[in-house]
């Protein structure tokens, strides 16, 4: 069960099982139009239009994959997370806060290069000092108090930032580590922003 063949096979079965005529027709046409009508600009190359396996499953199921498929593919995503060699998962919350503020990166008007911004405040409340926060994701204010007592919480937060899809296959949140947007140091700093008792998120 642990190898990657099972989820892949299940995904394939899912594709076949889905009624092609019901929604597949317009979806197929939409994909053809997208392939025809986009052009590369800046760092945004045309290969970004192709779905990877996870995106295809989420797109095909309206972001609600059948439970078995979802679980299996989440396990796949989790298996892909690379943890720091030194075993330390917490970095500097101050650097994390700075990174959380930045929404830069990967658009055709951004300069190519890493690391990019964490984009955190675009979607989440974190520090109470930052009142310009988005609401696409849940509030993370008082994260330590609300979630900190759970076992392996550092590992969970690290993994969640590295690959949000490991816990919710069709989550809105990007897979920052998986796609190489954030490196080990950046993710550690963001873990500290949520879990360091000195972080403003926990004040």
């Amino acid at each position, binding site marked *: 069960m642990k190898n990657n063949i099972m989820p892949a096979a299940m995904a394939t079965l899912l594709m076949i099982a889905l009624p092609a005529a019901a929604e597949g027709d317009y979806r197929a046409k939409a994909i053809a*139009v997208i392939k025809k009508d986009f052009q590369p600009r800046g760092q945004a190359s045309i290969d970004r*239009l192709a779905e990877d396996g996870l995106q295809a499953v989420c797109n095909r199921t309206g972001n609600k994959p059948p439970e078995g498929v979802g679980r299996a593919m989440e396990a796949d995503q989790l298996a892909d997370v690379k943890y720091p060699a030194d075993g330390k998962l917490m970095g500097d919350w101050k650097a994390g806060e700075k990174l959380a503020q930045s929404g830069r990166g990967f658009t055709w008007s951004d300069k190519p290069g890493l690391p990019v911004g964490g984009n955190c405040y675009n979607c989440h409340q974190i520090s109470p000092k930052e009142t*310009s926060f988005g609401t*696409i994701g849940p509030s993370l204010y008082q994260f330590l108090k609300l979630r900190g007592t759970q076992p392996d919480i550092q590992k969970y937060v690290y993994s969640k930032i590295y690959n949000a899809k490991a816990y919710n296959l069709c989550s809105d949140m990007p897979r920052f580590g998986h796609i190489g947007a954030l490196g080990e140091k950046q993710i550690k700093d963001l873990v500290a922003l949520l879990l360091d008792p000195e972080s403003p998120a926990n004040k």
Partner: protein
Amino acid sequence: MKQNLIGALCAIVIMGGAFAQTPKKPVAKPAAQTAPVVEAKDAATIEFEKFRAEMEDSNPAELFEMKGEEQWKTKRGPKNVALAESCDLGQGVGKIDGAYVKMPRYFADADAVMDAERRIVWCMVEKQGFKFDDIAKKPFANANFTPDITNLVTYVAGHSRNMKIAVPLKEPKVREAWEIGKEIAAYRAGPYDFSCNTCHGTDGKRIRMQNLPNLSTPAGAMKGVQGWPGYRMTGGVMLTHQWRMGDCFRQQRFPEPKYASDAVAYLLTYMIGNANGQVYKGPGIKR
């Protein structure tokens, strides 16, 4: 707290002042990342709304409408023909009243579903003899340049002011465009796995303090339609609905949609079609 509030208000006054004197000059942005408190932001929004209300009497969009009117009526291009005597926006040759709110629609002569901007470009190419690639090279305004097509779209849109949106969704080709547009809006891809719907598919969400309309609902779709083409106070440029679609894809981390393409027309069909029956107030002012 108070300082932030005052700062925000000052910024608006400065924006207003700068705009009144030199509409083409980019306005210095207030320090973007110093996050004002919620109350201050809301106050700033209220101030902007007040300012916009005051500006409605002398809407800067009207300047572009006037230029567009002249360009619509003048014989131009290699074929030396006026759009007024050659271009059919769906209401008959040269007729523009109510044309904007009835697009996108299907045009048999082009065998395509076209939004207003795409249709006018088509007329400029087919009737006046302009080259599509020349128009598509610089299709949108910047601080120093406003393309003719922007003036023309703004002129045409102005002649649908206070009219109800009526995209002909019962027409099979338009219906299909709506269906495909809906699928494009749901398509997740790219480095961040985003689709249009990641931000615009649910009620009551924000990015930072920016409210995100849910384009699948009539009220949300209307928010996405209202005010375009719009005069953007930041930068002082007149921008079209086509431009707005491209800027969404930029933030979605996608490549760029081709100008006046099926993809943009189908998305606009989905969004504007969802706003059917609601009153369009004409070219507007955007922050």
